[in-house]
């Protein structure tokens, strides 16, 4: 009786998840096994051809590009985000609210607009080049656009708030008396940071890494605009297959493959954060 009651209470959330997550996922999964005609219309005919193409060597490169971009994005946001999160967590309540507000502020502006902002900054006649030219530091404009690194800057910039907030939470949660105990036992600030603070905030870093890695894997407009399409990533590929390629079944197969990669990342994360009772996905 008790369990029945509890199960009934869970029905709305199950319906919600089923409608918004489950059904689209099933749709994508089914689609990935279907064929299409030359005009792009779906043909209800079972095939494994899409998956054969997904795992062909030509596309392996795309997977590796995407994984590298996502990994480097995670790394860059971690290195830049950790100090920001650490300092923010140690501010007074008022300043801390201000700092968090400033970190979240860019979310109020469309990410597409912010990407154009980077183009204005980094372009050949962009602000950075103009300033450097004006100061006489360089003779001709630096070519900064349409490179792998440019895409990396873009994705890292887009996703760093997730990293900062995740690390901030774990630094903030840290029991101050542990730090005091460390000083009390004779450790200086540096030793306390590396022996106590850093190891105890690893779950937060892992959480931030996961939160950054997953969207970085699928982002396409940043690499389209900042990378100029010179390097093809998974997101671009799926986008192209749906729009210009008119091959939705293939796009669906790539999506399923990407979901599998994401599941691997999450399982690694949950292993790292298994001692942390307030995980991201539990």
């Amino acid at each position, binding site marked *: 009786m008790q369990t029945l009651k509890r199960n009934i209470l869970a029905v709305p959330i199950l319906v919600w998840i089923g409608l918004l997550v489950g059904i689209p996922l099933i749709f994508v999964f089914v689609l990935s096994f279907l064929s299409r005609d030359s005009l792009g219309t779906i043909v209800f005919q079972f095939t494994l051809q899409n998956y054969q193409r997904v795992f062909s060597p030509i596309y392996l490169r795309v997977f590796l590009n995407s994984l590298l971009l996502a990994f480097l994005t995670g790394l860059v946001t971690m290195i830049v985000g950790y100090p920001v999160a650490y300092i923010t967590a140690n501010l007074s309540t008022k300043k801390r609210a201000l700092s968090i507000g400033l970190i979240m502020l860019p979310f109020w502006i469309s990410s597409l607009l912010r990407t154009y902002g980077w183009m204005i900054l980094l372009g050949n006649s962009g602000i950075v080049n103009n300033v450097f030219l004006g100061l006489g530091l360089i003779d001709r404009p630096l070519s900064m656009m349409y490179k792998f690194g440019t895409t990396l800057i873009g994705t890292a910039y887009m996703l760093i708030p997730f990293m900062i907030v995740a690390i901030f939470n774990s630094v903030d949660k840290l029991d101050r*008396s542990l730090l*005091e*105990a*460390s000083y*009390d*036992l*004779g450790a*200086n600030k540096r030793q306390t940071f590396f*022996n106590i603070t850093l190891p105890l905030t690893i779950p937060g870093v892992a959480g931030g890494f996961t939160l950054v890695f997953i969207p970085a894997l699928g982002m396409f407009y940043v690499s389209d605009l900042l990378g100029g399409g010179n390097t093809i990533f998974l997101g671009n590929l799926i986008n192209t297959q749906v729009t210009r390629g008119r091959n939705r079944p293939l796009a669906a197969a790539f999506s399923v493959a990407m979901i599998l990669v994401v599941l691997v990342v999450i399982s690694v994360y949950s292993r790292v954060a298994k001692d942390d009772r307030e995980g991201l996905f539990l």
Partner: protein
Amino acid sequence: MRQPLLFLVNINKYFGDVHVLRDVSFTIEQGEFLTLLGPSGCGKTTLLRCIAGLEHVHSGDILLNGSSIKGIAPNKRNVNTVFQNYALFPHLNVYDNIAYGPRVKKLMKEAELKDRVSKVLDLVQMLGYEKRMPHQLSGGQRQRIAIARALINEPSILLLDEPLGALDLKLRKHMQTELAQLQRKTGTTFVYVTHDQEEALNMSDRIVVMDQGQVQQLGSPREIYNNPSNLFVTTFIGDRNMIRVKVLDVGEASTRVQFGEDVVEVRNSKRHHMVAGEEALLAIHMDKMRVSCGEVPNALRGEVLSVHYAGSQIRIQIQVADKVITAVEYQKTDCDCEAGDSVYVVWEEHGAILLPLEDSGVEGEV
């Protein structure tokens, strides 16, 4: 006579506008078990943290072994703390927790360190637990590891901040005995913070009673219990009946006072001098009182209101004149009284003390 080890000289400390330590001065002696006792918010933990270096003092000085440690960072002070929640490092096992101090100070080789860890683990009876993680230990075990982690540094003073607060009653009693034994075995100076007077009276060589950031009394447990220096200590230590009496005349060793129609003699205290004709407070420990059925000298007459059996003790409420007095007896002997009986209430000489009527809020309390 013990050697003085740590001098606290006119310590003042503020949190914002709040004056949390007011001119605190006393001396901690080498090898003693000293307890800072007081209600929550009295400044005892803050004082402990000042000694540890975790709080800085606004004025005054702290001298350890003759030299000031006021400006010295906590990691450079030869004092260690056992924190209230133990503060064991959750990601390190018992061995690494205990080895933390010597390792960060790079004091010794791993082989020597291993011996030292074993030695302190043996001291707290936790040998064999080296590989356990803190979350795999019970509260009492964590407590022992926290003590071992501090003791391995051979501190001049071990500071303990309400270390038994999180334990259940039975374990707390057991740990009290163990802590006192450990202190004697190691000879380390213990400064122990608690709000639990029973703990303080049980374990300490000396007790510092604090209230509102000030030292109220410093003395041995017996001294504090029997000869409280002021109204605060009198009400804070032990359960007492507080009776407003009239001083009739003051003799060499005792003073005659009147309450209602009864006249009783109370021993004179060293600290307080009564004046005949004035009013005073008679404070008597409830557990030092006896109820007698037959007439006895130096007693207050009253009528039994109720008798409660609370485990090992019997609480008897007696109406004496306009006041309800509580007597606590541990076994019923001569007088098997019931509600409505007329009885005589007497007390052991040392259980009673006369205090002057202080102006601070006494009217309301008595």
